[in-house]
């Protein structure tokens, strides 16, 4: 028997997925374990936050209409419309602790992701490709808003990484820092180029793409710290 209950089982407990006997055993453990009780409390809070979100489709639709009005209709002369973007199909298993941790920043990133999809020529809510507007210069404010949202989410995860860096092996930490520095360099390159060419579809797209990469790496780091 571990000194603590593994996070995935605590997650199942919070979501009432355990059998009666196993659930009772978890409750007995929680009575005497502050550590596991704290995890259960955090998980319950995260799950509550997620439950308060509108459905993904409705979020995207609402945001899409706002973005659409700023972007305008019609295809640019040299932009090809693509039917799909990067996507994450639903996983078979329920969310792990790390995934839930990552999901905690969904509120901050969902609109940025939608802007990113707009940049990729993707459609929201499964609308036909032909109706997806291409990026015009009016999309740039939406990208800037997304950039700010990413910065906020990234800052929170960077704080978490700072607090937990001593929990990672030196070589893991070194690899993480190298990768984050590479992404940060790419972000700075894109921002500097955007200063000269703020309407560039390519640069705006690259900026959001790099922000997403950084966010994903930091999510992995946060999950590793929690392990």
């Amino acid at each position, binding site marked *: *028997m*571990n*000194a*603590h209950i*593994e996070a995935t*089982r605590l997650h*199942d407990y919070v979501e009432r*997925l*355990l*059998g009666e006997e*196993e659930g009772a055993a978890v409750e007995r453990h929680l009575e005497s374990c502050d550590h596991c009780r704290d995890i259960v409390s955090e998980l319950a809070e995260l799950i509550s936050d997620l439950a308060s979100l509108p459905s993904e489709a409705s979020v995207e639709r609402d945001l899409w209409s706002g973005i659409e009005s700023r972007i305008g209709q019609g295809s640019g002369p*040299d*932009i*090809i419309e*693509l*039917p*799909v*973007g*990067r*996507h*994450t*199909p639903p*996983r*078979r*298993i*329920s969310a792990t602790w790390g995934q839930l941790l990552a999901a905690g920043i969904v509120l901050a990133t969902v609109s940025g992701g939608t802007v990113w999809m707009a940049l*990729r020529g993707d459609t929201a809510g499964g609308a036909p490709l032909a109706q997806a507007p291409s990026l015009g210069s009016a999309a740039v404010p939406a990208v800037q808003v997304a950039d700010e949202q990413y910065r906020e989410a990234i800052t929170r995860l960077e704080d978490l990484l700072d607090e937990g860096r001593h929990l990672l*092996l030196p*070589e*893991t930490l070194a*690899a*993480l820092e*190298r*990768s984050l520095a*590479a*992404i940060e360099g*790419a972000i700075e*390159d*894109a921002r500097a*180029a955007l200063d000269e*060419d703020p309407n*560039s*579809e*390519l*640069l705006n*797209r*690259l900026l959001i*793409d*790099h922000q997403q*990469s950084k966010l*994903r*790496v930091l999510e*992995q*780091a946060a999950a*590793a710290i929690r*392990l």
Partner: protein
Amino acid sequence: MTGLLIGAAMMVAVAQTDTTFDAGGARYFRLGSEGGEIRVEAWDRDEVRLQADHGRRTTIEIRQDEDEIEVDSSGRGMLGGIVDYVVTLPRSMNVELEGMFADITVEGMQGEVSAETLQGDVVIRGGNGRIDASSMTGRIRIEGASGMIEFRSVAEDVRLVDVSGEIVGESVGGAIVIENAEATSVDVGSVGGRIDFSGPLADGGTYFFGTHGGTINIDVPAGTGAEFSLASQHGSISADLPGAPERFERRRRTTFSVGGGGAIVEAETFGGRIVVREAGSGEPDA
């Protein structure tokens, strides 16, 4: 666990564990490990053989319910210690493996495979359906898998060989090499590494490749029909295909169609090179 435990947990406290038991038709196998090697092999029996080398203070725990078999290790304190596993499973089982500092190899399975490790290499040969591979600091290699293939490496190279289906993934610092793929869609990106893709493009398929500083090599068979959309801010672009433009301007997206269209291919880079050409016309650019 989402089901009732119907099998007694087996607790073994020896330095070597070697046990074979009835799989009972279970469709899912899960294993978590803090460190060591995880090797999964396939056979045509409805049985599971679990071999594990571990310290005497480590306990291997096997839980089994109607549809799932779960293996974990525990020791004094929180960590389960270093355990080297060799697990032989019914070929059709779906496999989910998680390790902190574990090298993971999965050979010959025909179901879904998920292999995630913090520090270690991941090798998957075979697999159908969802195939997930993730390592923060290790290399990833996937061969002969088909379905929805997803990978993520933070620091090292990723190589996919003879795979088919949908491919999604990224490596921040490493190269992404996709050889001889029969992909219906590709969406891959790297910040600093190069991307090599070779294989036929499906009619109606979509292919996206993005890097910040690395080279993108796209090798397609002669006679491929596709619409290309290529963009580079500071790098260079070349497309050695019949009907492709001879010159590309920086800071502009260039679109063109070859072979009557069919697939949609998009590649973009900030400072790297994009090279599109017919397969067999030379080694990829470094």
